[in-house]
């Protein structure tokens, strides 16, 4: 659903706020984090020792905002993508 978005985190690393398409959203409940996986065999170009985690795993967050639920993908530090919204 588009490019990188900017997310503000609290001290424990949980998202508290983010901006998307010019609007700002506030997280209103304790967010839920989990880890999902990628189909590296269909995407990656190398899978040598040492890079297994980054090609295989991806961190996900489900946030309850003032405007409904959203799911963010957090594949790398400072990189956040919006993958889904529910109202």
């Amino acid at each position: 659903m588009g490019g990188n978005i900017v997310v503000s985190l609290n001290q424990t690393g949980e998202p508290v706020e983010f901006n998307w398409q010019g609007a700002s959203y506030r997280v209103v409940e304790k967010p839920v984090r989990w880890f999902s996986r990628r189909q590296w065999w269909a995407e990656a170009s190398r899978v040598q020792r040492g890079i297994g985690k980054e090609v295989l795993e991806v961190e996900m967050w489900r946030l309850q905002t003032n405007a409904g639920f959203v799911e963010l993908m957090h594949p790398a530090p400072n990189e956040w993508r919006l993958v889904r919204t529910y109202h």
Partner: protein
Amino acid sequence: MNDFTHLHVASAFSGHYGVTRPEQMAEAAVASGFSALAITDRDGLYGAVKHIGACLQLGLAPIIGVDLNIFDDDGSSLGRCVILAHGNNQGAGWATLCKIVSVAHERRKSASSNSSSGSKKDIGIGRRMLSELMANGNCTLLIGPDSDVGRQVVAGNRTMASALLENWHGLFKYPGSFGIEIVSHLTQPGTVFSSLQARRMVELADANNIPAVLTNAVRYLEPDDALTADVLDAARNLEALGLFESQPNAQAWMKPTQKMLALAIEITEDRGRALELFEITAKLAERCRLDPPNDCGWGKPKTPEQSALGIDGNPFEVLWQKAHAGIEHYYPNANGKLLLQVQHRLGQELITINKLGFATYFLTVADVAQMIRDMKIRSQARGSGAGSLVNYLLGISGVDPIEHDLLFERFLSTERSSLPDIDIDVESARRHDIYRAIFKRYGSQRVTLLSMQSKYQGRGAMRDSGMALGLDDDQIDQIAKNMWRFSARNFRGALGSKPELAEFAAAVEEDRRMNLLVDITERLDRLPRYISMHPCGVILGDSSLLNLTPVEPSGAGLPMSQFDKDDMDPMGMLKLDVLGVRMQSAMAYAVREVERVSGNSLDLDAVPRDDAETFKAIRTTNTLGIFQIESPGQRELTGKHQPTQFNDLTIQISLFRPGPMKGNMIAPYLDGRHGFAKPDFIHKDLEPILRETWGVVIFHEHVIRILNVMTGCGLAKADEMRRSLENPRANHLVQQFFRKEAAARNYPQAVIDRVWSILEGFSSFGFCKAHGAAFALPTYQSAWLKTHYPTQFMAGLFTHDPGMYPRRLLLSEARRLGVKLLPIDINCSTNEYRVEKDANQNLGVRMSLTEVQGISEAEIERIIAEQPFTDVSDFYLRAKPSRRTMERLALIGALDAVAGISAGEVFTRGDVMARVRQLNAIKKRPTPREDQPTLDFSRLNFGNLEQLPTGHAEMSITERVQYELDILHLDVTQHVLEQYRPMLDEMGVINSNELVGLRNKSDVLVAGVRVATQTPPMRSGKRVVFITLDDGTGCSDATFFDEAQSRCSHILFNTKLVIISGKTRRTGVRGVSIMAENAWDLKELWNQWLIAVEDRKQTQDLYV
């Protein structure tokens, strides 16, 4: 807070599931500050002994359990659960765990009554059976996220989950024997292994007052390894990635305590409850810590009880008597001096054996050896055991250690307390008979077979990687074919340096999936792949053996331990290697044929070992079929070495090893032997030790004696030091001791320095002389048979196929020896290669029916049972061959004799074929009983004298050979190369037996069937390819270095008929090899030549 203990950990020995070796896990556990660690492999205790060993070494408390499928009463799966053995209860927990695992595998046997071996899915245990085995409270069962309860929890069915939990709890009532496993792999909320599921599992446990235990269901050490786990999942499922549901993420790693605590808090959302989870986990861990000596019998030698061996009284006294009784038999004519030597040595060996308490062990092995002899099966001890006089006198070994100057201390000494290895070589064809006899004699409670874990290596790793990526089989085969002699661990490195991988390297550049293939092949390399029966190991114990090792069914139909050979010594288990050696079968067969044909008995073991004819034959280098010295390299060495006595064979076998070759020991030895250089013994004290090898240190025995002479430490201690030489950490202690003691004995500093540098360099090179001598015996015996009974010997080789070469090369060798090859004949051939005597008393070998492509065992049995046949239709009616077999037999001439062709009648093989076609055209084969009406078939002459249709063309020799090659893979009529003779002659190709007469560096062309391609490790590290061609007159060996390889690498590994150009290189008196320059596919040249000949003919026609 308690430190955390991982209680659910799969090691790499959880086949196609775990990723990390136990030793690595244990080391990482220490680094993470854990004080204990469990291994709970899937379906068995495969990694248990390695885990315990690593823990003991690292000061970690070992815990062992198993991860098993549990079945409900109706056979449906209740999911995988963990069962942990309790420790410090004198082995009660361990024995229960072993029993549970063994029972879990029995199921597989019964489930597989109609297939050869049950599927892995059948492994598991019924819940009720499990509860009975655990009724004593010596183990703890944990049911987790993947159990029936866990699944209901995920689905949100709390009531259902509670009811299912009650089913478990009602069966496992013993306090502390049942718990709930809490796991979160931080998966998506609402799925298995999510924190939400874990939280509900904790709530469920609390509500039912059942202990909850935290684990991370570990299957790899670090998150990076998860990727390897993906590939293993594909290999286990036999499906490409993406076609099945793969693991949810990379969280199943061995997380440190802090991360586990954070996880516990995330699950419980309550720090207090999280700490309680930790506490209960710690309590269970405490209870499961094993005391390996008392729980598992760690390090305590176990042998069958005296009663099982049929011995009364003190075993040592029995051993003493048996050994002394052997003196008269094995040294009948010993004079005073030798007798004194024998008695003195025997006394010393017996004292050592008694001190170690191994008398029962020797009696056991002697008992097995005697049993094998009683079964009339050839056998022979190999390895360091041949250095023991006791073994010789008990009939375990056939080599006299005094005559061959072998050391007992290399085999056994009071400096070591591990059980010695005695390996017995037997006829391979009778090996399973011996196993069954051992089980019968000692009882199945005392005996199991040994298992072995095979590892992923080059091609296997690549095939499974390719399968995981969904690559095309043919594509993988193409690449795998070119993988020669390199570790898959460095696959990427090999891409740049191996010419035969150049094509693939180019594909890797362009194709993303090929790139992945390389990376995951490297990851798989050396991981355990599957467990199988060890080719020769039998474990002999006392009646408690099955409390100490779990067993599972094996391919041989006998129970097999889940432990491998490396586990034997730590577990104090007695392993006997009963190794099937095809050469022993081939020799036994030859001896039986000699006896059958001549009517005289032959005792091969009693043949004098100094037969001049035999050594003369060996020196010709025509050693194909002779044990241990038939490889191209050994043939070349034979040419240079020119052995004249038994000890030469021992030396030659020991020299031709990677160590001595790398250590450049061969050249100085040969120079000394042939008088090209004066032997250098370094010091006069070493001369008696090294005289036999012209000053070159070859044997372990040399090192032991040198250390003993120069330090006065005694032979037993010297062998301990020799062993320490191989250990880089202990090496310097030996050096200190050696230098100090040798200096104290006034050896000059220069001598000490030189000897030390040799000893140090020797560490990885040497060979045990006793082992070499034990090998040399079948070498000599096979050479003797080949020299004196070539027909019977070749028949034995054909039947049991013992060597490294294809059978058709042995055929070629037989022809060269003048052994007559008799074609397959339905009236004479059987399922073996029998020796036949013709009317003139000439011997020949009748080819066996087993070589006919596609023939079934039942067809062979019928043919043998119904022989002889009177004509083709008689054969057709009574032997009932399939149409295809009938046709094939006719094509290779197996019906010629019965059709009267060889008797000089007017018929041709074409006529026989025509008759076979007639018979094959009949829809239903009539029964051969005489009262059957034959009217319908009168046209086909059943019941009357058979009339063959006539007038069909005879087959040419070339056609005959081609059919033989197609149907038998053998060229019986003549060597396959003969048909290309006109071209070879025109090209000036020479025969391999002419090479020895050529000058050094002559330009030559040789041709032949490629019978071996070898890429042995070389001193320089560069790859060299050795190709052996057979042209019917013998073998020619060509060496391809880098430049030559680059010209023709595609020919070297895949082409069958080859022409090679190069220069001769003399390597010794009878040694010649070819420095190759180029190689071609003979068939390609042949096609070009045929066209050229045709052109020439037309050109000539033009001028006529």
